[in-house]
């Protein structure tokens, strides 16, 4: 689920260690259905998609990467689903004999990301030195990539035209079968879609406190910070979440109660295959914004 956030980091790390990486194909109906069949009914849509991707990779590689990312410090936690991922896939795919690879980031237990990667390198039979060099390069690649994406957002911000901020986890916003339909529709309607989570992360973490003083999830805080940073630039905000996302269920409720100056659309995606429902809601949201601005 962290693919869109971490792929530069992962890809560079393994490449530097001379390993080949295999990436599953973009989400499609088949992946979604396979994942849904494997998951517990009540699990979130994102987990279902994730399990579908894992199933597509089983048997195609020596190891499948499934990290445990618990937190980056106090009130910088991830949803507990990121804590359970490695054990979850090992249990779900127990009979497939597929080997999984994981690393553990749990800053509150003094397990930082660098140590986690070094340990993973050791498990793969690399020396500490090689692993360290690979991690350094990988981290750099990740930062460069994130910076480039933030810059692109800044450029979009300066463009003329109606702008709508999409507040969503990257694995929802960028997934071709989930959030991307929303971005595509907005673009087609001549609207500039911006992303709340693609902002300078440190600044966002700080600004998130304006909207919520005790929010404990790293990604939610980045989104909150992104909203705080951009709320004056944009014409509307779409709170986009996958059913039934735990953190979003609460954070989005809070945003709706505290952000009163910008039109908000709370859009929850489920595994419906058609896009007509989503399009209708987007269309009426755009109409409302235009009406409000006197352009309709």
């Amino acid at each position, binding site marked *: 689920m962290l693919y869109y956030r971490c792929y530069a980091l992962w890809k560079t790390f393994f490449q530097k260690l001379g390993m080949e990486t295999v990436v599953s194909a973009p989400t499609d109906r088949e992946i979604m259905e396979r994942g849904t069949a494997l998951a*517990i009914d*009540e*699990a*979130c849509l994102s987990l279902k998609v994730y399990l579908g991707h894992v199933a597509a990779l089983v048997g195609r590689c020596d190891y499948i990467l499934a990290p*445990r990312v*618990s937190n980056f410090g*106090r009130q910088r*936690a991830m*949803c*507990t*689903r990121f*804590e*359970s991922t*490695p*054990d*979850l896939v*090992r*249990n*779900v795919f*127990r009979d497939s004999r597929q080997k999984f690879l*994981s690393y*553990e980031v749990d800053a*509150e237990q003094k397990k930082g990301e660098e140590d986690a990667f070094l340990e993973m390198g050791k498990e793969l039979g690399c020396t500490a030195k090689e692993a360290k060099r690979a991690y350094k390069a990988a981290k750099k690649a990740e930062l460069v990539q994130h910076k480039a994406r933030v810059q692109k957002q800044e450029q979009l911000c300066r463009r003329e035209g109606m702008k709508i901020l999409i507040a969503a986890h990257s694995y929802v916003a960028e997934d071709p079968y989930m959030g991307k339909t929303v971005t595509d529709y907005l673009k087609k309607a001549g609207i500039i879609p911006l992303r709340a989570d693609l902002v300078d992360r440190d600044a966002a973490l700080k600004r998130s406190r304006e909207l*919520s*003083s*005790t*929010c*404990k*999830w790293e990604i939610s805080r980045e989104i909150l910070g992104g909203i705080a940073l951009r709320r004056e630039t944009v014409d509307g905000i779409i709170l986009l979440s996958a*059913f*039934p996302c*735990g*953190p979003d*269920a*609460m*954070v*989005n*409720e*809070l945003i709706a*109660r*505290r952000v009163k100056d910008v039109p908000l659309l709370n859009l929850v995606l489920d595994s419906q295959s058609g896009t007509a429902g989503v399009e209708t809601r987007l269309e009426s949201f755009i109409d409302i914004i235009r009406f409000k601005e006197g352009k309709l």
Partner: protein
Amino acid sequence: MAEAKIRSVSFPRYAEYNCAFKYIIEQALGCRYVMPPVLTKRTMELGTKYSPDFVCTPFKTMLGSMIEALEAGADTLFMTHGLCRLGYYGELLEQILRDLGYQFDFINLSDYDMSKKKEYIRVVRRFNPKVNYARFLLQFMEGLRMAEYVDDITAEYYRNCGFDATEGQYKRAYQDFLTAMYTARSRADVEAGYRAAKAALGAVPLDKPQQPLRVGIVGEFYTAMDAFSNLELEQKLADMRVEVHRWMNVTNQFLRYGSGQKNLRVKVRDLSRYDMGPTSTANIWYARECAERGFDGIVHIKSAGCTPEIDVMPVLQNISADYKVPVLYLTYDAQTSDVGLMTRLEAFYDMIEMRKKVL
């Protein structure tokens, strides 16, 4: 400086632990305690009405209970922090209550960095700036002891109450114990209540077969323990003449494993290498323990939308397959009905009873 007003503090209903909250608030912190009314359907309706749709059910229960506590005269609400979504309950609960127009003071542990001792003192001072720390510590520990006694007696009660040979003496002894705890004002009261309950429960004649049906309960921290929230599942099972065992309680989860549950994980490492959530290790460990001890069935309880417990389920499915032990998965939301639960429990009971005869 104006005379500091004595706070009237409340914390939502939570299983039978409110007696310990009351003891700590009154004896250790020198505040007044407002006991929230017993949870009812009205509590759930209130909570559900004002909560976001797919937040976990305990949030709705707690919101309802807080509204009822405010109606009962509380001026200060207290909320804990936690490792899952619980850690964010406080801020959202406060916002919802403020939007509704309620006026109160809110003490939210998530506002404090509870890994630092200094912060504990800040919290205590907010309750009562004039608190006597020596007395506070002593009384606080006694409050915790009360919680331990509640856990101990409750566990004993559900193990045996289905086999009461008299007309409800066992249940009366348990209720007398709870009354003693809810009215205790000193260490002597607590100790006397506990000893009396031990003696009273021990004196009731039981009619228990050599090998009774035994069921282990695992699940989410709130719903598995709160009898209102799980529709008195333990009592219902016990009434079918089943020994009901539950490991999960405040004593075991918090008081005995201050430094984490690393030692429990040793035995389940093949199933779960890491903590999958706040209660996963304990639940997986206990489920395997039940399976190995030859229990007839396991019931897994969670509220709708509880992420950590959903993730534990695939592991339980594997335990179930490995040890051939039936597991009943129950999800509770605001609409779960008594009748629906009863039907499922009866079917589960018939099944484990039949297995016991055959095997």
